[in-house]
């Protein structure tokens, strides 16, 4: 590293240690830039892919109220993807490049969205647990060191607050409903609980990028810290509506003042990450298809604009 670069790096780290934000035009280590592009774009991809399992129930939502809520929620997810793509673009990557990486498999997205939504209760479970987990993560990220990402997270957190509440409310109504409804809710919980825990990523010890991300304050809390927070809050939430978290090892540990919980099946995690999940291929295929089918529309928009510009310069010339 050159003399200048090592000075830059020191200024960069000082800024981070002082809780100042890094803005797009600042000098930054290339690894910081690449790490952020990876993390922000994968976060964006997750939001957009996440529209599919939930969008799956919009046409079948059982009341007009629930239909409107779900449509507004999925709309928000599209918006979140958009804000995050915007934040990533300040780092010099284009939305097209990020889309290409998603399609090729070079970029990943949260594997929770590779699970199918089989019943209406799944929509409740996703709102309660998946958005719940996302919120725990996102609240922490509001203090991330990169300015546009932090500001995007503040905006997202503000919008996300109704997402978890509406999902929990669905589960609350089902759990207090008929025997069939309660069973539907418990079944959804059984299927989404462990994948929700996997959303926080590998154990800290097994996480490749963790240490560096903490030093650069891209990450503010570790995977395990956030996962523990989520478990603790979820136990109480499940108890309040009479549903049972599917973990026989779940137990209050007075010494730690936290809930102990069972070991995650990391093989299942790997499987769902690497295309083995039931909907893995379907999610990407759907995204590719929508993108391909939209091409003529985007081409028309550009062509129309060029024609307008040409007409304008002709009339001026």
């Amino acid at each position: 590293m050159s003399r200048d670069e090592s000075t830059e790096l020191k200024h960069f780290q000082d800024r981070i240690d002082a809780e100042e934000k890094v803005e797009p035009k600042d000098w930054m280590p290339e690894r910081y830039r690449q790490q952020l592009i990876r993390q922000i774009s994968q976060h964006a991809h997750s939001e957009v892919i996440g529209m599919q399992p939930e969008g799956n129930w919009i046409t079948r939502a059982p009341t007009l109220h629930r239909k409107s809520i779900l449509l507004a929620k999925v709309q928000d997810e599209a918006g979140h993807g958009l804000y995050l793509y915007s934040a990533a673009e300040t780092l010099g990557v284009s939305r097209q490049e990020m889309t290409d990486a998603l399609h090729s498999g070079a970029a990943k997205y949260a594997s929770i969205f590779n699970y199918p939504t089989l019943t209406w209760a799944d929509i409740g479970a996703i709102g309660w647990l998946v958005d719940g987990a996302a919120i725990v993560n996102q609240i922490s990220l509001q203090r991330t060191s990169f300015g546009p990402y932090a500001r995007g997270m503040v905006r997202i957190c503000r919008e996300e607050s109704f997402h978890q509440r509406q999902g929990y409310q669905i589960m609350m109504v089902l759990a207090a409903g008929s025997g069939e409804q309660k069973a539907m809710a418990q079944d959804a919980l059984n299927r989404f609980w462990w994948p929700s825990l996997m959303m926080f990523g590998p154990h800290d010890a097994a996480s490749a990028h963790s240490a560096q991300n903490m030093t650069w304050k891209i990450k503010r809390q570790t995977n395990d810290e956030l996962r523990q927070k989520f478990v603790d809050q979820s136990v109480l939430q499940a108890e309040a509506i009479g549903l049972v978290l599917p973990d026989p090892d779940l137990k209050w540990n007075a010494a730690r003042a936290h809930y102990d919980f069972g070991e995650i099946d990391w093989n299942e995690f790997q499987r769902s990450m690497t295309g083995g999940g039931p909907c893995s291929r379907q999610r990407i295929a759907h995204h590719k298809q929508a993108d391909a089918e939209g091409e003529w529309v985007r081409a028309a928009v550009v062509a129309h604009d060029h024609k307008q510009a040409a007409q304008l310069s002709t009339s001026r010339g």
Partner: protein
Amino acid sequence: MTLSDLQLFEVFLRPRRGLDHKHVGSLHAQDPAQAIEYARDVYTRRGEGVSIWVVRSADIVASQEGDVEPFFDPLDDKPYRHALHYKLPNSVDSM
């Protein structure tokens, strides 16, 4: 091979009368009319704005990282531009 992106626009919102327009993010559109409509649909769903500005990102002129010292440091050492520089008796200090 898919088409490359539409153009990038920056979006500014005035949250309510009396406040400045503030930068809220960006979006892709081809022309300003489309950009304004998308800004309305993306950034004002919760009543966040009464006025929208959109600007092509390419049209924004920004100060450079290298400008920071000559642009901003010389402005930082002239305390006589600030009220606190002037110590006055308590009885008249509210001016």
